[in-house]
């Protein structure tokens, strides 16, 4: 897996939960890449693990209602810009049942 391969331009780190990586065997919890916005980050995750984009982003398009993406501690949207070197957390919201 080409983790870290494309991190030169605008490096960031995407942090994935266990419940997410369980859906994509081989995906790590910590992914280095280059991405300037949350949308670009999701595109890159989907390029590496086809289908992962659909699990984070719906077809409106928007971040799924019960998924949270945090950039610098703030809930982000698709167009949110990611500072160089930032860690982005992709987390499932609390849900009942």
């Amino acid at each position, binding site marked *: 897996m080409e983790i870290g391969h494309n991190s030169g331009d605008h490096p960031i780190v995407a942090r994935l939960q266990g419940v997410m990586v369980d859906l994509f065997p081989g995906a790590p919890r910590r992914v280095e890449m280059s991405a300037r916005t949350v949308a670009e980050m999701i595109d890159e995750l989907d390029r590496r693990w086809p289908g992962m984009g659909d699990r984070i982003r719906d077809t*409106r398009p928007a971040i799924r209602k019960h998924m949270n993406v945090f950039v610098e501690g703030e809930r982000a949207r698709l167009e949110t810009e990611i500072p160089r070197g930032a860690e982005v957390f992709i987390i499932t919201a609390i849900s009942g049942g």
Partner: protein
Amino acid sequence: MAKVMVLIGTKKGAFIAESDEARKEWSLRGPFCNMWPIHHFIADPATGALHGAGGNEWFGPAIWTSRDLGETWTHSSQGLAYEAGKEPVAAAWSVAPRNGELYAGVQPAGLFRSTDGGETFEHIEGLQNHPTRPEWNPGGAGLILHSIVFDPKDPERIWIGISSAGVFYTEDGGKTWEPRNKGTRADFFPEDQRYPEFGQCVHNLVRAAGSDRLYQQNHCGMYRSDDAGQSWQSIEEGLPSDFGFPAGAHPRDPETLFLIPLNGAEKGRFVPDGKAAVWRTRDGGRTWADLRNGLPQENAYFGVLRQAMATDRLEPAGVYFGTGTGTLFASADEGENWVSIADHLPTISSVETYVID
């Protein structure tokens, strides 16, 4: 000796119960599909693949697929989508194989087709373009396309059931559709509007073997159609209520149907009087017999959901149903005698069978 698999979709993953053709000793495997809610779980006999239609509150819709009888799984929602800006697909509710193709019904109601075994899907837009579409209203589980019925002789003919838009029919492979609800009631509408063209809350739609006969369990009644759904006749007389969810067609005899009437939409949706029974007709719904041998006859407060009953193709036919309280009941003799073959599963959403010779 044949292997019999009962495919069980639940609120928390899919399970497989297995036996031989005697259907006496059962083993259970699962949970599969990462504990996602699986609304419908089927086998495609042409490919041997298993497919689970699901939707997860966090991750959205997907069709799960196993090509090794449940050992390993993949999932996809590629193409299982409406155009940008529209309400996204929340979950897949039904999946049906035909001639190497796979059809999926989703929430909000729409029909999709896969020609690569569930890896990618294309939208059958004709249904979405039906002029009644803006007036479709959701039922209790949402606006869901839960029943997909094919004509084995004519690939262009498809019937679907949507809660609560009713039954729709195409004879051009999905390009154009027409409502087929004449004679079915909508008691939840004003008194003078209870037989509308569409808007009925069909709960489950099945095809009788070898004919143009259809049966449906509706929110408001049980019905038979002998003309491919152009008109429907009530078959409620002799049953303890007009309410229930699943309908089970016999694999060979078009006159035999299994239903599980519940006590009523607003009375808890339990088996009546705390006593479980499957009701069977051998004459197309004219008369009914209650089958109770082996089923709980006191303090039973469960329901059975719309896709949670199935028959197998053996002789005599097996009949299976799963309860909201996670028990799977089986009969190896067309409903005469019942045993529980799994007791503490999550809420059972669907039951289907797969017999491998």
